[in-house]
């Protein structure tokens, strides 16, 4: 067995990501050794960044991704536990503090997003588990003077094959610690898997049913004060004048702090701070969106269609205009959407003596560390970031300004501070799923044949908003992050998210043209579960339905007839058709179908609606997914159920509107979420696969809205081209 140090171990397992490889190689040259692993306990056996064997034989598993409901703790723990031969629930799971060894090789940061956690960790974490297992077996072989092959590890012990000796892992830890960390280990073959493909119980469930789970909002440190913010309602507006007198008179209020775009009220508790905020005298200077409303934004988006955008995809010759007998030319539109996670944004910060320490549910701890270091002009090593399970995120916690606000307030107070956003703050100061507009066009010949397909999509860039997050992390501290500002423009210009979900249309068509037209009205936008796919699949897969009906074809057969025999869309469509009994719905039940491949996973959904007093009601959703190897079958089902409910809330009701440069909605009364009483039956079916696992947190979202709109068309003959759907069915709002 040849030994390698831990940097080499990582070189061995980091198969992708040039940036990480570069960093590791430089480290290996001995210029600067990486800092010690931040989660490391004293006196433990730690073969790699992820696992520590404690003297009592238990294993600490450090998780470098955010648990925000998607089940990543369970999924990653399953990979480690498979090789260790233990129950995943026996691992002591904790979240990683920033360190280069936890960097995601695709994102060059510790960001959780893009549904890649299982995919990128599939080999890495199994290898990490195998390394510890092999060290324990080797330790037993040495202590017992026995052949390695006779030392069998599992269930927290190593035993001799003949049963004559056994030792707990804790007993072997001291000997194992003297051994070199092995590499090049074979992983368990698929046929020996006992957990992957079988283990269902979530490791975090017990703490979430007895109330002991601790989220960012639950953290308390001694001497902590609580702050709320009074924010300028208009995007881009600034504080003109603040009169704190009445606020300071409220019992329990300690201080009022003025910032550029908000005022902080710091008090003994949330209710005291809230009451103080409610009586604050404040005037704002209206921002650049003064007078702007949703109708003006829509009008400007339409105007943008007169321009030429960026052609993302163009295949086939444009048809001779003489041949075009008929054209379907329609507009689709979606509104801004809020993330509305159940846990309002909250963070605890302690700042002083050239150091900072924060606690928050966040989707990028190393980005947060770099942002805080720059904000306070202190080294990154002086900033500790504690990540907690997030009470939902859906992309929102990629943007961590709420933690910086807590840092600012804690610095000003010279005391520990917990900042809590109200639900209204969360609703009105989100980074929204963009409002977008699409001009969809199909040309038909005199013989009825489809000649051309075109999508022109007007949307702001979401990718450009990642630059101010990633640049402060990747640039050395001495270089101002503003140097990266020009990349925001470049990133916008090449943003693939603007058209993702439409640009990859998989059907064989004689002519395809997809065009991206940027339009940014300066309403803050961000990544929202499945990102561009969420709106573009609605445009594209609804329009497929329109074209199929225009050709007099069954929408499912239209798709199947234009997919290659090996297309992943074909497999999930065939499966969903079988499981939903496509075309055989009972009387009064109407079906719609849609499919999309994203995050390397393909999902097809059939939505069934019935009409109740003329209003569509969703009774069942059948999902078929190809996500490669299914690591935790029930967690995958949960994610599909979750995606369906999340997308159904959005498709039926979700709408953030702008009035005079500010968001009109504020709480769950005017931004309703689906309740249990409206939740349909949801079925999930898997395409059998031995490929590596791919994403599951997001891909269930995009097909829902088009499948629903297609079912509504089947039920009512009414083509809904604008979300939310219930706008078309509410009284006094006929379209």
């Amino acid at each position, binding site marked *: 067995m040849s030994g390698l140090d831990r940097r080499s171990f990582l070189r061995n397992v980091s198969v992708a990501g040039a940036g990480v490889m570069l960093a590791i190689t430089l480290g290996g040259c001995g210029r600067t050794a990486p800092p010690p692993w931040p989660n490391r306990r004293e006196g433990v056996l730690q073969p790699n960044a992820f696992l520590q064997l404690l003297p009592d034989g238990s294993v600490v598993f450090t998780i470098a991704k955010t648990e925000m409901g998607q089940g990543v703790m369970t999924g990653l723990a399953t990979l480690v536990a498979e090789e260790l031969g233990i129950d995943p629930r026996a691992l002591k799971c904790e979240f990683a503090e920033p360190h280069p060894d936890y960097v995601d090789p695709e994102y060059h940061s510790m960001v959780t997003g893009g549904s890649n956690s299982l995919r990128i960790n599939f080999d890495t974490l199994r290898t990490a588990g195998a390394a510890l297992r092999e060290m324990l077996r080797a330790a037993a072989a040495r202590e017992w003077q026995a052949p390695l092959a006779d030392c069998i590890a599992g269930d927290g012990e190593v035993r001799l094959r003949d049963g004559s000796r056994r030792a707990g892992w804790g007993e072997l830890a001291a000997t194992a610690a003297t051994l070199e960390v092995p590499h090049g280990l074979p992983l368990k073959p698929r046929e020996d898997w006992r957990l992957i493909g079988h283990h269902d*119980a979530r490791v975090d469930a017990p703490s979430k*049913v007895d*109330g002991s789970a601790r989220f960012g909002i639950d953290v308390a440190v001694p001497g902590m004060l609580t702050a709320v913010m009074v924010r300028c309602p208009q995007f881009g507006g600034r504080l003109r004048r603040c009169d704190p007198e009445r606020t300071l008179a409220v019992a329990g209020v300690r201080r009022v702090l003025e910032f550029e775009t908000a005022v902080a009220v710091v008090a003994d508790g*949330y209710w005291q701070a809230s009451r103080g905020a409610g009586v604050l005298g404040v005037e704002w200077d209206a921002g650049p969106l003064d007078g702007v409303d949703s109708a003006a934004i829509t009008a400007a988006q339409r105007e943008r269609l007169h321009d030429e955008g960026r052609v993302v995809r163009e295949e086939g010759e444009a048809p001779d205009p003489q041949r075009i007998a008929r054209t379907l030319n329609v507009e689709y539109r979606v509104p801004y959407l809020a993330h509305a996670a*159940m846990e309002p944004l909250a963070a605890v910060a302690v700042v002083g003596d050239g150091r900072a320490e924060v606690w928050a549910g966040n989707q990028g701890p190393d980005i947060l560390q770099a942002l805080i270091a720059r904000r306070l002009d202190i080294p990154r090593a002086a900033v500790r970031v504690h990540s907690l399970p997030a*009470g939902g995120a859906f992309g929102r916690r990629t943007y961590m300004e709420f933690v910086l606000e807590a840092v600012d307030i804690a610095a000003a107070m010279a005391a520990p501070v917990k900042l809590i956003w109200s639900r209204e703050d969360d609703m009105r100061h989100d980074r929204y799923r963009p409002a977008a507009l699409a001009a969809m066009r199909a040309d038909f010949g005199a013989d009825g044949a489809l000649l051309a397909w075109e999508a022109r999509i007007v949307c702001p860039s979401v990718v450009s908003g990642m630059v101010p997050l990633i640049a402060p992390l990747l640039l050395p501290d001495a270089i101002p992050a503003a140097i990266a500002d020009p990349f925001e423009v470049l990133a916008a210009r090449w943003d693939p998210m603007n058209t993702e979900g439409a640009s990859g249309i998989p059907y064989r068509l004689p002519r395809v043209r997809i065009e991206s037209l940027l339009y940014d009205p300066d309403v803050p936008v961000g990544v929202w579960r499945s990102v561009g796919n969420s709106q573009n699949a609605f445009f594209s897969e609804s329009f497929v339905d329109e074209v199929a009906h225009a050709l007099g074809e069954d929408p499912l057969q239209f798709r199947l007839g234009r997919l290659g025999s090996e297309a992943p869309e074909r497999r999930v469509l065939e499966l969903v058709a079988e499981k939903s009994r496509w075309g055989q719905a009972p009387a009064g039940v109407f079906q719609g179908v849609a499919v999309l491949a994203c995050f390397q996973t393909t999902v097809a959904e059939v939505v069934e609606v019935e009409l109740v007093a003329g209003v569509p009601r969703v009774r069942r959703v059948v999902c078929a997914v190809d996500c490669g190897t299914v690591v935790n079958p029930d967690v995958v089902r949960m994610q599909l159920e979750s995606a369906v409910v999340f997308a159904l809330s959005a498709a039926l009701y979700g709408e953030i509107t702008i009035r005079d440069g500010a968001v009109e909605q504020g*709480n769950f009364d005017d931004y309703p979420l*689906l*309740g249990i*009483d409206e939740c349909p039956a949801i079925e999930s079916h898997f395409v059998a696969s031995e490929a590596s696992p791919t994403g599951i947190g997001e891909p269930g979202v995009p097909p829902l809205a088009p499948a629903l709109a297609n079912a509504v068309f089947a039920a009512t003959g009414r083509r809904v081209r604008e979300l939310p759907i219930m706008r078309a069915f509410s009284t006094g709002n006929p379209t």
Partner: protein
Amino acid sequence: MTVEFVLNGRAVRIEGEGERPLLWALREDLGLTGTRFGCGRGLCGACTVHVDGVAVRSCSLPLAGVAGRAVTTIEGLGASVPHAVQRAWLEENTPQCGYCQSGQIMSAAALLAADPAPDDAAIDRAMAGNLCRCGTYPRIRRAIHRAAALLAAEAAS
């Protein structure tokens, strides 16, 4: 003012303003963070507790309103042995992010105390005010039916 009440079976006394919502006394004064803040207006149900056995929204209930009454939070529901609802919740693999689940479980336990065998319509009525952004509703429904069966089996044995 001083408000005295019974919390999870023990007498407690809170000093402070009587109009302050129970939620914040639980979370900030008593350190019982299992009861969650979600909306502040009784619209989401994340803060649900029992007052004299009835599910109420603690974010909108003034502290003075619980004087002399018995309050149960998620920490008290299964303090000695997990409540049937909590066991059923685990068996159905219900929680995702978990943030709303305390409130869901408290609402479900109150429902089952009042109606030991609720049908789907009764579940809809009792649970519609408890929002879950992760979409655990199908499992919540199954877990409530399962908990009803567990409780019936316990009662029979």
